[in-house]
């Protein structure tokens, strides 16, 4: 249950402002794809355009093609809500729902879509998702406590559990470890390795070691020049990107010679 994504000539706008220009890539199914690049170069913007979260911001729009499983996401007949059910997302800052318990947070995607289910079935989903997010052992005795009471790393794993509870095809992660300590980060990286066998994962990260550790393929984004839109500079297998990149700018960025 994983899908590949093909992106063709994608331009992303905020109002009249062209933020990202001319992206072409194919994200393979059941693999981890990482995006690296300096701040403000459009990595997160591009990531959000992959499940139509981009248009939540007023005035934001997209031109070009994003194809998942042969269907264009930006067809006029496509329902963005249906897209987001198949392509889940984990955000930079952990954001569990403050009014809900841990249990309810995991089930939020199902419950909010008013899916009727039996108690046993719900329990099963909660346990499976929390185990999938490596959180089960830490919270199994306090499932009815508020989700906000967990530590930052636990909250982020709760958000991952919540995202995989609806069984999406693709999981997008926008700097999921940037607010976490090294131990929680390593827990989430291990998790990404495990999830890879079932999901297509796309991760934005500022941490180059992390990209090298977790990803199979890496895309380097950069601004064309100051004030110019961001672009995809190079997209290659992670091994090649970090050992012998095709592009000079990529090498400069990865070796730290470039801000």
């Amino acid at each position, binding site marked *: 249950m994983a899908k590949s994504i093909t992106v063709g000539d994608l331009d992303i706008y905020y109002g009249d402002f062209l933020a990202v220009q001319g992206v072409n890539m194919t994200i393979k199914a059941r693999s981890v794809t990482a995006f690296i690049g300096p701040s403000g170069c459009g990595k997160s913007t591009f990531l959000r355009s992959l499940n139509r979260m981009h248009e939540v911001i007023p005035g934001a729009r997209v031109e070009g093609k994003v194809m998942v499983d042969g269907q264009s996401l930006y067809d006029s007949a496509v329902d963005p809500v249906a897209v*987001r059910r198949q392509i889940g997302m984990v955000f930079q800052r952990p954001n569990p729902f*403050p009014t809900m318990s841990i249990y309810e947070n995991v089930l939020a995607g199902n419950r909010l879509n008013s899916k009727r289910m039996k108690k046993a079935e719900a329990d099963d989903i909660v346990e499976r998702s929390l185990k999938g997010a490596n959180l089960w052992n830490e919270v199994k005795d306090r499932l009815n406590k508020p989700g906000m009471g967990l530590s930052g790393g636990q909250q982020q794993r709760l958000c991952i559990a919540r995202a995989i509870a609806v069984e999406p095809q693709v999981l997008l992660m926008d700097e999921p470890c940037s607010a976490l300590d090294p131990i929680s980060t390593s827990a989430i990286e291990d998790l990404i390795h495990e999830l890879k066998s079932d999901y297509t994962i796309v991760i934005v990260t500022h941490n180059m070691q992390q990209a090298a550790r977790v990803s199979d393929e890496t895309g380097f984004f950069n601004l064309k020049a100051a004030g110019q839109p961001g672009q995809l500079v190079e997209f290659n297998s992670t091994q090649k990107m970090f050992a012998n990149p095709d592009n000079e700018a990529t090498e400069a960025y990865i070796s730290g010679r470039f801000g």
Partner: protein
Amino acid sequence: MSLATAPARPTSEPVAFTQAKLPRLAPALVGVVAVAAAALPVLLLGWGLIAWALVAGVLYLVALPAWARVVEGPRGAADRMVTGLVWAACLVAIVPLVSLLYTVVDRGLPAINSTFLTYSMYRTELDQEVGIYHALVGTLLITLGAAVISVPIGIMAAIYLIEYGKGSRLARWITFLVDVMTGIPSIVAGLFAFSLFILIFGPSTRVGIGGSVALSLLMIPVVVRSTEEMLRLVPADLREASYALGVPKWRTIVKVVLPTALGGIVTGVTLAIARVVGETAPLLLIAGLTTRTNFNVFSERMTTLPVLIYTQNANPGIAETPGGTPPGIEIAWGGALVLILIVMMLNLVARVIGAIFAPKTGH
């Protein structure tokens, strides 16, 4: 300029972290002395209590900073001065409130007895007991009607402003008009309801629901404003988290945004109710005046507590004993006490509800 030519920074002088301070009891000491010193001219010249307090206050505000200046220096003096002023402002703000509460309790409490809350003003013989039951019922029903009208409208308008209309021209206009509505004099709201009901139901119409309409006009802007503020406080992260789970926008609002803001919204609504429950002028116009208990807001006149207080005060009747309190005045004080208790209870309820619905942190 190179570093070498810069003069060397003297380092030998010891740094003092301690300095002289007034004793901890200094403010209390100066306060006692000021009160005592102020008593002298006040007693000699035969001034009253208020003058005494004023003179004592001024003496305190001069003496303590002066002493502090000698011992602690200018910064200490300024600190003592401002602290004194802030305390004085606080006292000045509280004194009228306490005095008002004391007077109402003092004068209203004797009026309240078993018949006061259970009898209406309607009587067939002069020596029958009277009470404010009819006004209590009227106040509760008319305010309930106003809440039923304005809470859904207010909350939905706020949802439109925050979730859908953000930044649009229509939303800006609505916000502007809501702000204008906040400042509408209550008598104008009453006149609006009055003319509306007369145009529809013919002249000399007086119904309770008319009062509800007038009050809801005053309530809606308060509800919109407080709900708007509360919805604004809900982090955008939560909405995005919900969208990313494939939840439609309206469900996100109903299941995520509103529950998160619920505590604040309920508090805002309760405070809006407390604000309109004491309105007199609009109800005098449209709800009319009656001595009988009326449970039907859709027909016949209805009296509310503020209107009862106003009319009893205007026509107090004749005291049983010469020089005593006229019966109307007693009823007015009793009614005022009951009204204040209702408002106080609403505020308490708002606090409790706010605490219950506040998002749980789990600590």
